[in-house]
């Protein structure tokens, strides 16, 4: 076991130390952090002035409503119904206030208003102000009725009661998480399984494999390689999750404090995946990674060059593509018989069963069954891959035919 450990260690350290790994691992969160931080930084500059807005009320009526709606959106509002527009304009020009908003009769009827500012306001800011005007107008017109304008504008609520059929409906955030999560799984599983293949191939083309095989059995080498690369994958995922978590916990509140018009913290975080998402992700990542990396290791062992491997990996690629193509349909109809059957096929489970589980559509027994099937497949696949690996690893020069492959499986 110490020997396998040495292979794992080498594979892990060589990769983790590489520039590519550091770049990808730190780069992705860095981009996300930058995406979060830049608006915060931009917003905090001249914040006090930009956030000050004068509401010039020509109706002498709706002004306070607009002011309140704007204040909810994080603006400092100064109402001026009687002052001449010229004087307010001068104050904007001198940079004393961020801008002024003119509301008139049109505002009450059509939600129309006029904003005067220095420099073009962002689309987001325009949207926030527009919504404030609409909300104020509606509230003003509907005053005295029992209408909850906030609720209405938020899109109302649809309560679904299902009489027959299993599983609940897919709610929107879960749908998105299932979709995004499946694609993320597809990316990382493919990325690391192909890394295993390249590593196998590299040892062959390097001619280093014979030295290694005089010290280790092919089986030990393959096992060490798969575990080593897998550990790299887990490290990368862990870094991403931790940084992502830190961003949500620390970065997001800071961002929202600076830009309240983006929305409310609770509303945004409720759409984020919870612990069960990550638990499923881990389980299906491991299952999918082990199955596909073993297959890719076998492909690498059968080939003698990168070009050859490009072609030889095609059958394995199909096993990954089918579920990706089926993904949309499965998420939309998570309880259709076809969806259930497809998601139970071990090669597809990492993507399809994951999606159904995250969307809350798969009963526990189906998830458990798919995991059990994946484990069985894993044993079978590694057994076959191990044999192909054992025979193929020393083969150089000529391309393998299918009949030869069958003979290997019988002989090895």
């Amino acid at each position, binding site marked *: 076991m*110490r*020997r396998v450990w*040495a292979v794992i260690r*080498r594979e892990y350290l*060589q990769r983790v130390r590489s520039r590519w790994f550091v770049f990808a691992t730190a780069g992705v969160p860095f981009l996300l952090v930058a995406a979060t931080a830049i608006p915060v930084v931009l917003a905090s500059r001249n914040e006090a002035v930009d956030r000050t807005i004068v509401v010039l009320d020509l109706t002498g009526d709706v002004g306070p409503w607009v002011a309140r709606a704007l204040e909810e959106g994080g603006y400092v509002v100064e109402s001026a119904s009687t002052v001449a527009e010229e004087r307010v304009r001068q104050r904007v020009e001198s940079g004393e206030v961020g801008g002024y908003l003119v509301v008139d009769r049109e505002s009450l009827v059509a939600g129309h208003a006029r904003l005067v500012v220095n420099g073009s306001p962002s689309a987001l800011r325009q949207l926030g102000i527009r919504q404030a005007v609409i909300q104020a107008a509606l509230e003003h017109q509907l005053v005295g009725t029992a209408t909850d304008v906030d609720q209405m504008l938020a899109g109302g609520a649809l309560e679904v009661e299902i009489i027959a059929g299993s599983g609940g409906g897919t709610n929107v955030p879960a749908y998105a998480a299932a979709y995004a999560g499946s694609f993320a799984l597809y990316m990382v599983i493919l990325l690391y399984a192909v890394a295993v293949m390249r590593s196998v191939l590299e040892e062959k083309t390097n001619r280093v494999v*014979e*030295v290694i095989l*005089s010290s*280790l059995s092919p089986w030990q080498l393959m096992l060490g390689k798969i575990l080593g690369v897998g550990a790299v994958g887990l490290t990368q995922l862990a870094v991403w999750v931790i940084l992502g978590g830190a961003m949500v916990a620390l970065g997001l509140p800071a961002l929202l404090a600076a830009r309240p018009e983006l929305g409310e913290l609770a509303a945004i975080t409720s759409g984020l995946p919870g612990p069960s998402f990550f638990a499923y992700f881990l389980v299906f990542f491991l299952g999918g990674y082990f199955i596909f990396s073993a297959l890719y290791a076998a492909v690498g062992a059968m080939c003698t060059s990168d070009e050859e491997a490009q072609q030889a990996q095609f059958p394995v690629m199909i096993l990954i593509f089918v579920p990706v193509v089926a993904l949309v349909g499965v998420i939309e109809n998570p309880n259709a018989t076809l969806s259930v059957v497809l998601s139970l096929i071990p090669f597809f489970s990492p993507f399809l069963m994951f999606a159904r589980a995250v969307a809350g559509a798969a009963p526990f027994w189906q998830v458990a069954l798919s995991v059990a099937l994946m484990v069985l497949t894993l044993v079978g696949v590694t057994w076959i891959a191990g044999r192909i690996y054992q025979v193929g690893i020393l083969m*150089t020069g000529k391309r393998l035919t299918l009949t030869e492959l069958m003979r290997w499986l019988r002989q090895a």
Partner: protein
Amino acid sequence: MTDEYAVRLEGVTKRFSGHTAVDHLDLEIPRGSIYGLLGPNGSGKTTSIRMIMGILLPDEGRITLLGSDLDQTRREKVGYLPEERGVYKKMKVLELLVFLAEIRGIPRKVGRGRAGDWLDRLELGDWADRRLEDLSKGMQQKVQFISTVLHEPDLLILDEPFSGLDPINQDVLEAIVLEFHRGGMTILFSTHLMDQAERLCERVCLISRARRVLDGDLKEIKQRERTGVVAVSFDGPDDWLAGPEVMRQEAATGAVHLVLHKGADPRGILRRGVASGAEIHRFEVVEPRLHEIFLRHVGEQAEEGSGRAATGIVRVPVASSR
């Protein structure tokens, strides 16, 4: 463990689709000997060595190693330098050596110490923290050589060990191999360079076209292979050269070669020469060089083989390859 042979092959055969790479090979390598496996390219040397190392499995026959056939013994007590050798180019020299020792069961700390000593000894100490890709081919080869002995094996198997090395480094490594030999290590190496085999080996096995053609102690082989040629150089009369023992005379550079009849005693010629008053500088029963023995046997076998199969490669019916 009391086996007197370090390596023993009995009737070992390996077929690849369509041809036989090794055909019923018997090989006995005594413990502590330095043994040369000789043969032209494609004769089955590397395949034999790979089977000894357990990298290929023989189709027939039995291989025993250091009195045991366990994989673990093979991996811990044998050092192996394959013909097709490579390195992880992105790794640092010392890291690679420690790794290669570790997969043979040597703890990292011990491996690091030994690797450092060897690097210093082969004048690679300054390169320990450089990547392999920065090293020249010759340097890489020295690193590979070090990697085969870090676990202090009882048996060292070197497949074409010195190909591609300059004469100076070749001498350095040859000296180290001989030093191991004096220390009691069994050494098996394959080569197609006869001069090298002649310098280093105690025993040789000559294989050609998948079969063993000659095997044994190098001195004995040479004696057995004497063709009855006497090289003579002298000043003075030459009438003493002719006699009943001599079949014919041949001119050679700086000497005359006398080809004797089978079983003839050369001492009579020398006596006549002394009596004739000639000034004899050299009178030597010529031992054939390994190179000539090699050519003679490989040639014979080729002729013999031509009757069997045009290419000398034994075709195996497809059905038997199952």
